């Protein structure tokens, strides 16, 4: 048993007051969860402390919350590890969470003064009460937005669909989602653009895009690529990968959607496909990035040959001009290679040919090594396991 201080961000709408912090002392084993701590505080100190939970075993996905600023499940975060995380930088004191106007006061755990474990409702969602958020507008509505059901060919078969097991492996990772909303809570794109369809819904979209029984693959991809808040609105911050308690890695599923959209040759008004195609072509030709050429080609591919930039592309290109002028003025972009697309040098001494050879090989080879499915080999057995083996 150890004593921990939970510092909980509370909000009671019926009081008419704004949110406030309240500390609770709990006395539990370090291997028990933050949710267990909250339930003990609710039981012993204040029955009005509101939290949503059910299975307490990371299966139902009800207790999404932020612990020390990280989005997670309360039942999957151990008190001991949360305490350690809260105190990793004791001497300088971690920043108070957004919205708090004081430094976390010293609490007590294991008999010594320590930072409390900070517990907050999920982010990017309206708070209903204490740790309970409204997931309707920020999660469920977006899930419905991606048509989360199978759209098969023709009439359903008389009995079950029969597919090769191998063809379903690719989507098992996205199927592991328990709809807890931790990824939505952590999403940094959604923080800047609440309209972003978001990690949970896009991972769900891949679950059907990758399903061999679905007949609307191209339509789904076209829809998600064309939406300004779709697959090209993900800013690649990895937050959802760290937040997900089930290893779904939603960002990886979004990248798979982009890959499939590219393979289908879907052009989009967001310059997503153009940007990707330009980037890849430039590295094949130059080995390192020709920034001037990337800027031009992302907006207006083939400007030297057949000029067919879209209206939004012209706007984007014009919009970048003030930035380039400023960079010219300070000397940041005063060399020819930074101003004129295509001047950037190739890699030296035959190295560019080596890169080209890799590209040539890759045209025929597109193996996707999925660690979620294949796992790591060559893992040395733990010492105690080794003893068991030899015994």
């Amino acid at each position, binding site marked *: 048993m150890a004593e921990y201080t939970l510092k909980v961000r509370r909000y009671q709408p019926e009081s008419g007051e704004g949110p406030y912090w309240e500390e609770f002392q709990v006395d539990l084993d370090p291997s028990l969860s933050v949710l267990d701590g909250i339930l003990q505080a609710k039981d012993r100190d204040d029955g009005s402390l509101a939290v949503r939970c059910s299975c307490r075993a990371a299966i139902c996905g009800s207790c999404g919350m932020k612990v020390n600023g990280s989005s997670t499940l309360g039942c999957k975060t151990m008190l001991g590890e949360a305490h350690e995380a809260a105190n990793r*930088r004791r001497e*300088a004191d971690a*920043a108070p969470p*957004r919205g708090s106007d004081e430094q976390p006061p010293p609490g007590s755990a294991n008999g010594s003064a320590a930072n409390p474990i900070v517990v907050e409702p999920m982010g990017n969602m309206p708070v209903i009460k204490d740790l309970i958020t409204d997931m309707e507008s920020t999660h469920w509505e977006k899930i419905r937005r991606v048509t989360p059901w199978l759209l098969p060919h023709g009439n359903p078969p008389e009995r079950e669909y029969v597919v090769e097991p191998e063809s379903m492996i690719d989507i098992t990772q996205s199927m592991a989602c328990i709809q807890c909303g931790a990824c939505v809570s952590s999403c*940094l*794109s959604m*923080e*800047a*653009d609440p309209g*972003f369809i978001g990690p949970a819904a896009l991972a769900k979209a891949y679950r059907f895009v990758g399903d061999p029984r679905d007949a609307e693959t191209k339509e789904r991809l076209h829809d998600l690529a064309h939406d300004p808040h779709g697959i*090209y*609105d*993900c*800013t*690649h*911050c*990895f*937050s959802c*990968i760290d937040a997900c308690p089930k290893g779904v*890695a939603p960002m990886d599923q979004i*990248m798979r959607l982009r*890959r499939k959209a*590219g393979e289908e040759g879907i052009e989009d008004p*967001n*310059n997503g496909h153009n940007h*990707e195609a330009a*980037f*890849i072509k430039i*590295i094949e030709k130059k*080995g*390192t*990035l020709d*920034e001037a050429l990337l800027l031009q080609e992302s907006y207006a591919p083939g400007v030297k040959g057949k000029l067919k930039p879209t209206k939004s592309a012209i706007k*984007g290109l014009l*919009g970048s001009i*003030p*930035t380039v002028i*400023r*960079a010219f003025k*300070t*000397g*940041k972009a005063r060399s020819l*290679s*930074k101003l004129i697309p295509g001047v950037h040098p190739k*890699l030296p001494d035959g190295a560019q040919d*080596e*890169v080209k*050879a*890799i590209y040539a*090989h*890759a045209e025929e080879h*597109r*193996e996707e*090594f999925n*660690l979620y499915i*294949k*796992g*790591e*080999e*060559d893992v040395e057995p733990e010492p105690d396991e080794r003893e068991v083996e030899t015994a």
Partner: protein
Amino acid sequence: MKLAYWPGCVSRGFTSELHGSMALVAERLGIELVELDRANCCGAGVIAEHNQELADTLNARTFALAQETGLAMMNICSTCQGAQSECQQRLDADSSYRAHINEVLSGQGLAYEKGKDGFTNKNFLWVLVEDYGLDQLAAKVQRPLSGLRVGPFYGCYVVRPKERLGYDEFPERDLYLEKVIEALGGEVVEYDGARKCCGFPVITMNRETSLRQSGTHVGDAIDAGADCLVTPCPLCHLNLDMQQPEAAKVVNRDLGLAVLHLPQLVGLALGYEPKQLGMSKHIASTGLVEERLAGVPA
């Protein structure tokens, strides 16, 4: 200390002041850098998004070139770190996949070998704290950054995903910028955006989202009293510094906060002048930083 050095593309492009200041700083720290001038772009996640095998092969080539030197590898770009670590994780996970990739490299007389000579690829920030040592760094300081209030800005690719980026072994990697700032005599400014996204990856796809992110973080740092930000990522630098006047329009407020590359901040403490470190090339004025340090003799 001698390291195989991958500067990345942007440090020799739009942020050439980064590459230049790294060279100066390495010299004064006594770190010898063997530049991998035949190595290729890491793909910044974009190539992997298109064809994972292509990205893995390109980065295996870079690792193989580094391994030829027999030295540990260092990069100066969070994005290179993240993109390369992602490929390295797949390559290291499975010997048959590694053999498959090495088949392509064998035509070029190259091979990537897992763990060869204890091979590592680390950002300059990680090298400073884990290998060079903060005490040794502090001992080299000629102009303590006293009175300079610095906000750290990490860049997503060196803080997430934790499992891939070695946080099991080094759990404090997301606190290193604070440690370095303190070792150089500066004052750490805590603000909301230190470990958030600068928005750069979507600048050509959703300019509004992108600039709202950079503008918000710069604004938060100003409100917290920062004199400047420091970042180990040149792509973050582009969105936080080069795009700052545009970001100011999106968040509808005055900004104007210097954003230093990590080697520039170290360089100032080692006694180099701002101009030598290329700070005059920045878009956001570094005047306040220079003013704060004017009273401290080099």
